[in-house]
């Protein structure tokens, strides 16, 4: 392949060599780099080991979600929603389905069993997503073993979800108005076994990774995100909570059956340094996994007790044959593992296809804070900060 200077204009640098000072250098990180968690490209202005400026370039994984959504009926958009945050597809589906149900006005008619199953699978997926976040974060900082332990435990979750939906990561399980299928017979018991198995593993993980001396040294007091900057940048999810605000949409909005469940909302306390540093973000994710386990446990109790499997239960009973909401605008949001996932819908009332469907992706907004907190840090710390944001490029680029 010959040299193609015309390709340079498709993704040019924002910084130009001519304007640099003598000691400065432009360093290109990514898009093919193991610590950028996918195809993210960072343009760095460096002075020796110090990062003076960061310019993120995104869009390498842009698959036109919003354009696709404008040409497909509401129910056929769900597989595309899966592919946005592909490590937490259940949570995204849940948010999307809630939005369309709200437009149709059926959101309060859903059977309780459907809601409990939705929350169970979504929380299992939240654990899987946080496991990936912590495992790859360890990899970024040079800790190899936790990643294997984590992948081993995550496999149990993926197998449970595969058993329920037939797919390992991109489920298309939560449908508008219900579910694809009831849980398979014996799922609740197997899931409970997993909860008992996983609790001690979380303690292990905490000792192995979070409380590890090297890990603390690499993350404490690094990339401190002040609360006012976090709110101003629209940061949500574990990142916002690590900065000290007890803000969880599961509690604040109380959607689905979350008001009936008991769980804590952990916030960063600055135990190893200052509130809102990288260690706090990792620690909040670990605590959230414990809370998710609690939620799963309570949901299983409900699914085995009050709302147990009956012969005539049909999870597709409310799934509409034709989805044509009235003309309206609607913004719906839900707590994804990475933050607030929002969908904006405009329905024109004349067709089965959304007129406009905008996804407010949490990783996209969270990533935009990176330049603000990584000016003047060491190059190695930049990797620590980027890993602690926990981005999924499928969602950043959509």
């Amino acid at each position, binding site marked *: 392949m010959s040299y*193609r200077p*015309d*390709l340079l*204009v*498709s*993704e*040019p640098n*924002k910084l130009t060599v001519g304007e640099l000072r003598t000691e400065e250098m432009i360093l290109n990180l990514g898009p093919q780099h193991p610590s950028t968690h996918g195809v993210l490209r960072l343009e760095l202005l460096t002075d020796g080991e110090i990062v003076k400026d960061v310019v993120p370039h*995104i*869009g390498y994984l*842009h698959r*036109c979600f*919003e*354009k696709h959504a*404008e040409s497909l009926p509401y129910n056929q958009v769900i597989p595309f929603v899966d592919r946005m945050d592909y490590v937490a597809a259940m949570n995204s589906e849940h948010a999307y389905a809630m939005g369309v149900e*709200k437009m149709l006005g059926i959101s309060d008619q859903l059977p309780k069993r459907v809601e409990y199953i939705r929350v169970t699978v979504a929380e299992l997926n939240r654990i899987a997503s946080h496991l990936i976040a912590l495992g790859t974060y360890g990899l970024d900082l040079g800790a190899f073993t936790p990643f294997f332990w984590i992948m081993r435990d995550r496999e149990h979750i993926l197998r449970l979800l595969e058993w329920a939906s037939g797919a390992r990561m991109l489920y298309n399980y939560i449908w508008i108005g219900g579910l694809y299928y009831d849980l398979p017979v014996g799922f609740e018991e197997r899931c409970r076994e997993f909860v008992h198995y996983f609790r001690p593993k979380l303690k292990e993980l905490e000792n192995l990774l979070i409380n590890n001396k090297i890990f603390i040294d690499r993350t404490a007091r690094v990339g401190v995100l002040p609360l006012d*900057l976090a*709110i*101003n*940048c*629209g940061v949500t999810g574990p990142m916002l909570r690590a900065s000290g*605000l007890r*803000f969880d949409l599961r509690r*604040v909005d109380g959607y689905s059956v979350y008001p009936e469940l008991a769980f804590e909302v952990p916030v960063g306390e600055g135990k190893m340094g200052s509130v809102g540093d990288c260690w706090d973000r990792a620690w909040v994710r670990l605590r959230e996994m414990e809370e998710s386990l609690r939620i799963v446990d309570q949901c299983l109790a409900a699914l085995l007790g009050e709302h147990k499997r009956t012969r005539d239960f049909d999870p597709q009973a409310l799934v509409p044959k034709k989805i044509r909401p*009235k*003309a*309206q*605008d*609607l*913004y719906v*949001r839900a707590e994804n593992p990475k933050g*607030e996932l*929002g969908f*904006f819908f*405009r329905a024109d009332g004349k067709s089965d296809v959304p*007129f*406009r469907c*905008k996804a*407010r992706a949490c990783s*996209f*907004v969270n990533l*935009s*804070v990176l330049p*603000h907190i990584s000016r003047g840090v060491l190059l190695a710390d930049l990797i620590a900060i980027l890993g602690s944001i926990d981005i999924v490029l499928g969602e950043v*680029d*959509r």
Partner: protein
Amino acid sequence: MNAVLEKYQLSPESSAYPPTVRVDSQNLILLLTELRENPATYFDMLSCVTGIDNGPEANTMEVIYHLYSIPFHQSLAVKVVLPRENPEIESVCHLWKTAEWHEREAYDLLGIRFKNHPDLRRILLPADWVGHPLRKDYQHQEYYHGVHVAYQAPQPPSDR
């Protein structure tokens, strides 16, 4: 919140959730600044900025700002309608840094220009891409750097 909206003679639309008010583009910054700074409203978070193309028949574009107030747990959407030819609106980056990337996205996919934006470049598409895909009358270019843009089904081999 209602006092501020009354001051600008705005009333929320009935067919939208969260409550949506439509404001003239010259009043936008005034209203948003007041909504953010006023201690009775205090919309400290900008959740989302959405650009919409209403198509060549309506000949308008819209920008919708979804605001959320954390202390008051209140949501509000502010809507601006723009002409479809040369849509231009003041940027709100100086109020919420969230807007920076969202406005770049609206510029990239819809071609809405934001005045006084610190860094208005394409964000998702390559810099030398032609057109704005989320416009309803968008036609993609035939070739991009010698690559056929539309999908072409592979031809079956003929010599079998």
